[in-house]
């Protein structure tokens, strides 16, 4: 679907790509949103790490009445089983993050690998792989995930594989376009002419150039994975005994938190998911924007045009 998929090759055309670390440092120092995004992600990762120690109550025992409102002892109230919601969100966040990161890793390995193979070698492999990628890009993710999760049965590893296998296509497309443009550059041809092997060219010369875009893509894929995880869980297609951000919402909806007026079973959990997605989005978008020089110019005047004296007033006075 060449017309549909944006060609990232065009985006970076003309811009000299810096090395990974240098580029990321620049993005983090120049763009406030990138720092905010990174901080949000770091916060949730940290929260997940300390959750087993810091969670105020156990997540498998009743510690308060059903749907008890937030109070001094239970900051975020209790769910339908009398379990403390703050503890559930802390512990569930960890599992959601593991699902999101692992699924992203799966999709990066498949997408990165296929993208490089197809962009670097071309030919029949390229056509075949990209046809599959196009199919996956067009197909409705959630419907496909529903079908697979249902045929295989609900469990966490299945959810990870389903998300990973569904999400690699966009990465592969992007990497392929980038590889195709990089491999035609003079220094790559020069490296080839002095006898560099394919793998050396790919790992030494092509991958570092693709790095920043791949990182932006990874961060954005984490957001998509967590989104899909919560959606699948909400539809009851995840291990029902697991505590994740998705199943917390599912339990709240399925067991009538709304008619009980228990907003605390819904809002904090949903906000946690949204905050993490915002974090990933801000960081990923900041990197992508930094790679797109076309966003820097605008010819529209922001103020109404006024004639001004060429010399400034202070100089006049002097």
């Amino acid at each position, binding site marked *: *679907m060449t*017309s*549909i*998929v*944006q060609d990232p090759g065009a985006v970076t055309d003309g811009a000299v790509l810096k090395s990974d670390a240098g580029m990321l440092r620049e993005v983090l120092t120049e763009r406030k949103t990138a720092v905010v995004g990174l901080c949000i992600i770091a916060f949730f990762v940290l929260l997940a790490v300390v959750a087993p120690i810091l969670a105020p109550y156990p997540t498998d025992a009743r510690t308060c009445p059903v749907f008890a409102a937030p109070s001094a002892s239970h900051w975020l109230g209790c769910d339908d089983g009398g379990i403390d919601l703050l503890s559930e969100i802390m512990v569930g966040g960890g599992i959601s993050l593991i699902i999101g990161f692992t699924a992203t890793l799966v999709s990066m390995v498949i997408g990165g690998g296929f993208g490089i193979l197809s962009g670097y070698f071309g030919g029949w492999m390229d056509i075949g792989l990209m*046809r*599959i990628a*196009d*199919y996956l*890009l*067009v*197909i*409705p*993710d*959630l*419907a*496909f995930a*529903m*079908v*697979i999760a*249902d*045929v*295989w*049965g609900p469990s966490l590893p299945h959810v990870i594989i389903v998300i990973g296998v569904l999400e690699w296509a966009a990465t592969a497309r992007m990497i392929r376009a980038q590889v195709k443009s990089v491999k035609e550059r003079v220094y790559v041809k020069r490296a080839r002419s002095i006898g560099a092997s394919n793998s050396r060219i790919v790992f030494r010369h092509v991958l570092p150039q693709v790095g920043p875009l791949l990182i932006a893509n990874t961060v954005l894929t984490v*957001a998509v994975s967590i*989104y899909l995880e*919560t*959606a699948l869980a*909400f*539809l*009851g*297609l995840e291990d029902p005994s697991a505590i994740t951000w998705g199943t917390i*919402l599912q339990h*709240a*909806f399925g067991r009538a938190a*709304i*008619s009980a007026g228990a*907003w605390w079973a*819904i*809002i904090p*959990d*949903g906000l946690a*998911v*949204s*905050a993490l*997605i*915002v974090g990933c*989005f*801000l960081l990923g978008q900041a990197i992508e*924007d930094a790679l797109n020089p*076309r*966003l*820097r*110019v*605008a*010819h*529209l*005047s*922001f103020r109404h045009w006024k004639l001004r004296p060429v010399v400034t007033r202070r100089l006049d006075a002097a």
Partner: protein
Amino acid sequence: MRGSDYVIKRIGFALSTIFIAITVNFFLFRVLPGSAITDLSRVPNATPQLRHALTAEFGLDRPKLLQYFIYLKELAHGNMGVSYISQQPVSSELLRAVQNTIPMVTVGTVAAIVLGVATGIVSAWRRNSMLDHASTNIAVLFYAFPTQFLGLMLLLLFGGVLPASGMRNPFVFGAQSLWTQAQDVAVHMILPSLTLCLTLYGEYALIMRSSMLETLGEDYVLTARAKGLSNRKIIVRHAARNALLPIVTIVAISLGWIVGGAILIEFIFTWPGIGWTMWQAVNQRDYPMLQGGFLLLAVSVVLLNLIADFAYFRLDPRITE
């Protein structure tokens, strides 16, 4: 590449994608491990006649490869088997469900496009102003809200005021005039469509904003400004029109998301459309229904993508170059 070549290429692409979708569908349900339970003839409580008829129709006692060709043939005739639950043909059940989905999804999507494009243009126009920051932040927030969370929040807010489930009030249906019935459906549609609109609008607004910013850097905008046109004229006549092109693309790309969102929304609001039907099929192990629903969604998304391609071609013939 000439225009007609482009059209033929796109049609060929759509057809091959549909073919892949059909094949994947067959393999998912009949060949992969765990698919023995998906035997089309295992309709619970079915009469032996129905079972025999289905086995004969789909050649279920034949080798898998032959079954595949029989599946293609039956599909070409619109035969997708019989629902395990209602024992009605899957195709007629799906048709009914789709008729309920289309209005709800169309209203939500169109509203999202209008809202997204309008806020995107204003944001880019007033770049880096308070208005831009506020609008962009709100768009990012709505973009990040999971669909189901947004639906639940709207339920919490308006659950008592607006109808929260179903498509019709059972006491209105049938007895009253057509106008009253239409009003009833429209009121039931507000929350589902609003949820869809709000989940989609954020993305459209962000894309429209960056597309406008890119367009505003083009030379023809500089020329327009040099001619002394007002900002409003530059925006409306020169920038916005060109900036709208990516919106066509992004709507096409997000069709899969729209469908996914629609499934979640129909589940929350018990809207009797295709998403609700599929969720019920999952819940009741109604495999023929699930298989049919998935195929229908896949094919419609491919066809809608094709339409978007043609629209894009109409709007921007440069694409063939």
